[in-house]
């Protein structure tokens, strides 16, 4: 399982951080830390299956619906 974040859609609401703090983080300026690693789309490495519930919640609760889960 990988998580794909559309950084153009994302507007740093940070709701994903509540749902899956193991995966998502905001920096001191309130921006998603993935922004430092990619411009348009960020794809995580392979995530442990134990994170599925929290990652699904993050995808559901994203106000911009910018998070996809890729199996």
């Amino acid at each position, binding site marked *: 399982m990988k998580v794909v974040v559309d950084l153009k*859609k994302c*507007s*740093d*609401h*940070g*709701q994903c*951080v*509540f749902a899956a703090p193991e995966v998502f983080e*905001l*920096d*001191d*300026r*309130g921006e998603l830390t993935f922004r430092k690693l990619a411009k348009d789309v960020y794809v995580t490495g392979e995530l442990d299956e134990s994170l599925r519930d929290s990652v699904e*919640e993050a*995808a*559901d*609760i994203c*106000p*911009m*619906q910018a998070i*996809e889960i890729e199996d």
Partner: protein
Amino acid sequence: MKSVVVVGASLSGVRASDSILKHNSDVEVTLIGDEVHHPYNRPPLSKEALASGSDLDSIKLRLANKDGRLKLILGRSVVSHDGESHKITTDDGIALSYDALVVASGISPRRLNIPRVDRGIFQLRTYDDMVALIERIKVGEASTKRVVVLGAGFIGCEIAATLTTLGHQVTVVAPEDAPMQRPLGVVLGGEIRRRHEANGVTFLMGQLPISIEEAGSDSHFGERRLGGVTVNLSSGSAIECDLVIEAVGSSPNTSFLDSSNFDTNDGLLVDETLHAGLGVFAVGDVARYPNLLIDGVPRRIEHWGLAVDSGRYVGRSIKAFFDGGKAEPFTTLPAFWSDQFDIRLQSFGLPGLVVEPEAISLLEGELSGDCVFGYHRDNDLVGVVIVGMASEHRRLKDLVEEALSKGRTTS
């Protein structure tokens, strides 16, 4: 296979459908929506999508169809319900039986009961509403349109901010003293007004529209524009504009339950597991439910996040119901956000419970900058509204959750 029917294919219905399929392997779901479009996300309609005129594809909601157990019916509304025989009927006369029913029918925008012309007045709830609004804004020679927004709630303020950013001339008219007075309070609401005004929005607060008529050719606002309308106000003044947007609140869609014996006084009354009885559940805007984390008083909460959280929850509640038991109560902390110009509001808890100005106080930061307001009931914190400060959200959410748990044990 058991059958669950979900009435309403917007956010709460879609998330309910996902969670029912996920938690119940022996269940088929029929999801019925009255719009013809694939389910989509509404918040962008007053913000990003309105600004960019984006197509439906960019705001579509993901919808799981686990093992092909989902049937999606679009463009049909449910018109009646028989609780005794566990059936609903759609507007094309199809009767569907269910083992459990989820009411996710949401809300409809209210219309003011005032004399009005039959054109030039818009509402914004659906994608089609947004398309119609964008079309109207494009029509005519002047690229800058004069827009009157009736209502200074979240939707009204978001539309005002978006259209002002696009270069239109926007006047907001509302009866309260400050925009978003409930839930922000007059001090923070007043500050948000100041920031809107700095960006070019005009506010006429403490006023009600009394009629909307054709703009007269003797207008002192300059040359008459084709299709203009005039909004007459309770103060005796009048505003001529190219279009009016009515954002004056909403009412829950429960008319199809009228023949049932349920309490639909203000949405469908359900218990702490979102169950109304007889296998009928409610999620999202339409659910009037007691949150045991707060005070157990049933209330409707029209927050986007509540639609997600209650939808995600209800699959477990239905599983427990099928198993002859009861799920753990639904006690998720309510939360909302709103983006207006560069203002980002985030709330946790229920600030809207607090009306008395003295029970609302600045907890952190400066009113003119990033700040946190606290909302208290009997000296207990029941909610916060945060302006900016994204990196502090987690701490403030925990603060509210702790205060609510503490308030509950001491009361």
